[in-house]
């Protein structure tokens, strides 16, 4: 066998559900060198295959699932999968990154990326085992929750297979329905579940796979991987994540008053510890740890409670702990585990779900949605778990008011009363992630620019907090001074965001977990470039790696420019920009539009994009070898 590409298979599997057609497309090192892997390659494919006029819920939307370039190698924590599609929530390009084993199995079956075109008339699922690919009727799995469907499908296809599935929420086209890999690993944001639901695709099952990942220089890569393993074991932030999960962040955020509670009206909470990873261990909820493919950090939690009829599930993560905890005034940890499990098996994004329920509770308190009490049988007041459970069921199955709530905050608040949009924590159709962006300013800038919407898992600027020595060192390297680490500071935020955006794009593309290089710091751009070179044989350096990151970020911006985005969309929810927030020390913070704008100016200057419109300039595009986008940029730049 002659290998023309290393570390990847060089194969894209296309499945057309409308015409029942399957074909394989090959690609080579030229594309890999420019776009690195899954996220970058999928953005490039998206540019060619998804027209800017295509509606998210139509036959024209194409959904891509891809494994990272390092997935399937002995490099730790690099088993992440990227899902790319046009989002029904934002009606724009969207990418979500997910853990689990799906990407690993996909790669061992001989493919890097699956592109799902068109839509089926009847429920189906796709089965992939090496060269054998089948579109199989899925009537008997349609309607099943994700856990049950997974067990049934594994029974059918054998242990060692893995699934990517949607739940009832995706089938009912809920705008924040998730796609779950390996049952509990969730590509949650943006409503990818609804895209599959529209396609009538219950999911994709990959068999054991009999291919191997061939590395260009296996010995060198192996030795470097072992070094990364030891760096991970020595990293303070990653040790904490391994011990207490992502929810170990809760107390740090509470201390720095960046823990949004009661729908972003409070930035700290007396009951925060009930939502903290340390508490799950201390109070005996933790049964064990769960790792994504290749990940020795294993931050996922296996939890159990006897209450609520007995729950045995995986999670909750930090975002869920806050979204369905402090955000809705819920300090009952047993209830939190139950709510998390419901979202898991129905296939709902807990961040958006929490955003919607928080809005419902605040609206009810302020005298709106009065009929809900009668409809739910209980008052949707702060911390009311029974009301929350009922709301989750109603949203998933689109019953009563739940049918409207399933459309997401951007639609709902305008329908109920435009006044309520002031506490609808969303912008561009996506509900805000769980961090106080009025105080954490790098997050604020990153959220405003993020192609997804106000969300953390695209540009996690966790180093901004300066929780560890490594984080402070990074901030010094990016901004010139350690003093710039910490919350409530504006200085150097654009520089922090640019670096994080670039490295994040590469991290996602190679399949590495962003916690390894932006929350912990076991890997940096120099190590990434060495690994990339020994894995693929493509010449690389730190600068080239960061350039590739910039290329991917710029291409994603151009895709959205083509879909109608410009600088006026780089904004944050109303409450964030118009109301002040008080810290636990009694200090008040406001993030005005003027502050955000001055950060944006500096950001566009650093990027070399047009200041007024936020569109990449033709010279920048040519420099990044994105010539195919120049025409589109000129068209939008010349518009008044």
């Amino acid at each position: 066998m002659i290998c023309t590409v290393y570390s990847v298979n060089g194969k894209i599997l296309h499945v057309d559900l409308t015409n029942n057609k399957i074909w394989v497309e090959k690609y080579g090192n030229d594309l890999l060198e420019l776009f690195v892997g899954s996220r970058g390659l999928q953005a490039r494919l998206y540019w060619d295959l998804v027209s800017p006029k295509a509606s998210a819920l139509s036959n024209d939307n194409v959904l891509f699932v891809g494994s990272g370039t390092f997935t399937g190698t002995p490099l730790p924590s690099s088993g992440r999968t990227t899902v790319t599609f046009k989002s029904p929530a934002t009606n724009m390009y969207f990418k979500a990154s997910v853990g689990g084993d799906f990407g690993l199995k996909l790669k061992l079956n001989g493919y890097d990326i699956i592109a799902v075109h068109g839509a089926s008339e009847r429920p189906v699922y796709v089965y992939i085992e090496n060269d054998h690919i089948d579109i199989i009727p899925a009537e008997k799995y349609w309607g099943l929750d994700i856990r049950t469907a997974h067990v049934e499908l594994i029974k059918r296809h054998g242990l060692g297979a893995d699934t990517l599935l949607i739940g009832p929420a995706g089938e009912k086209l809920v705008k924040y329905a998730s796609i779950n890999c390996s049952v509990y690993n969730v590509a949650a944001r943006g409503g990818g579940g609804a895209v599959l639901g529209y396609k009538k695709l219950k999911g994709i099952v990959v068999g054991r796979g009999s291919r191997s990942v061939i590395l260009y220089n296996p010995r060198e890569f192996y030795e470097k991987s072992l070094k990364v393993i030891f760096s991970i074991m020595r990293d303070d932030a990653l040790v904490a994540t391994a011990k207490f999960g992502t929810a170990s962040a809760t107390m740090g955020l509470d201390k720095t008053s960046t823990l949004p509670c009661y729908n972003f009206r409070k930035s700290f909470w007396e009951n925060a510890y009930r939502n903290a990873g340390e508490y799950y261990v201390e109070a005996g909820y933790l049964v064990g740890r769960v790792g994504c493919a290749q990940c020795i950090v294993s931050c996922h939690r296996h939890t159990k409670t006897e209450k609520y009829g007995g729950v045995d599930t995986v999670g909750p993560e930090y975002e869920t702990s806050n979204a369905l905890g402090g955000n809705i005034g819920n300090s009952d940890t047993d209830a939190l585990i139950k709510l998390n499990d419901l979202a898991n098996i129905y296939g709902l994004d807990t961040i958006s779900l929490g955003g919607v329920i928080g809005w419902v509770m605040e609206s009810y308190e302020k005298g709106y949605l009065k009929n809900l009490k009668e409809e739910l049988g209980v008052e949707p007041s702060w911390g009311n778990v029974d009301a929350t459970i009922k709301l989750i069921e109603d949203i998933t199955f689109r019953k009563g008011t739940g049918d409207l709530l399933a459309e997401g905050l951007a639609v709902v608040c305008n329908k109920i009363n435009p006044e309520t949009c002031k506490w609808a924590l969303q912008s561009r159709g996506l509900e805000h992630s769980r961090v106080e962006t009025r105080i954490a300013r790098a997050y604020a800038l990153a959220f405003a620019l993020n192609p997804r919407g106000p969300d953390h898992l695209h540009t996690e600027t966790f180093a901004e907090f300066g929780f560890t020595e490594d984080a402070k060192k990074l901030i010094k390297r990016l901004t010139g001074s350690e003093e710039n680490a910490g919350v409530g500071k504006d200085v150097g935020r654009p520089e922090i965001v640019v670096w994080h955006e670039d490295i994040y794009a590469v991290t996602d593309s190679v399949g590495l977990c962003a916690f390894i290089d932006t929350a912990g710091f076991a890997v940096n751009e120099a190590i990434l470039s060495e690994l990339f070179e020994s894995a693929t044989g493509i010449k690389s350096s730190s600068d080239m790696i960061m350039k590739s990151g910039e290329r991917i970020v710029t291409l994603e911006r151009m895709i959205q420019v083509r879909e109608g985005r410009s600088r006026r969309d780089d904004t944050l929810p109303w409450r964030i920009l118009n109301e002040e927030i008080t810290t636990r020390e009694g200090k008040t913070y406001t993030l005005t539009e003027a502050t955000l704008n001055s950060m944006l100016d500096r950001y566009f200057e650093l990027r070399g994009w047009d200041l007024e419109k936020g569109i990449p300039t033709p010279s920048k595009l040519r420099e990044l070898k994105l010539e195919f986008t120049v025409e589109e940029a000129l068209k939008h730049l010349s518009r008044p």
Partner: protein
Amino acid sequence: MFNLKLKILEAPHLEGCRRLSSMISINPGLCTGCHLCELVCSTYHFSKSSTELSRVIVYKDKASAKFTPTLCVSCPGMPCAKACPTGAIIKDDRTGMPIVLVEKCSSCGECVKECPYNAIRFEPSVYAYPLICDLCNGDPQCVNVCWPGALTRATTLTEKFKGAAEARSIIVKIVSKYTR
């Protein structure tokens, strides 16, 4: 994909870890199901990476978040060697582990059926012969990378067999749950 003449990677030892006859102990409760042991095992032995080319086998019930690795614990009497019709499995005197003589092996799979710990991997579509743990010449790579602690160096035989028995009971449960 058959590849009978596989190049064996020269063992990149970690300093201070060389010890022949080191034993591995399994602690199933600590396994997080990450597969890294498998990928490291396959890269170390075959210079290429696949879970199906590994001598460690990870069993997973993802729906219940239950995982365990299993591997050869060189049980007394060597039932695999007894089951082998061609006498292809012999004991490696240095490590005490069974080794498969590929020139004698007929790929019949009898050893797999007899192994009490489900610890022999035999995937004919990936590799023509059974794969059994060889302790990496005394420096088990899987143990070096298993941070969660599911695979550790055993100090006593009792500990080793207790862990393997625990792993076996979990595997039986997983297999029966996912078999129709």
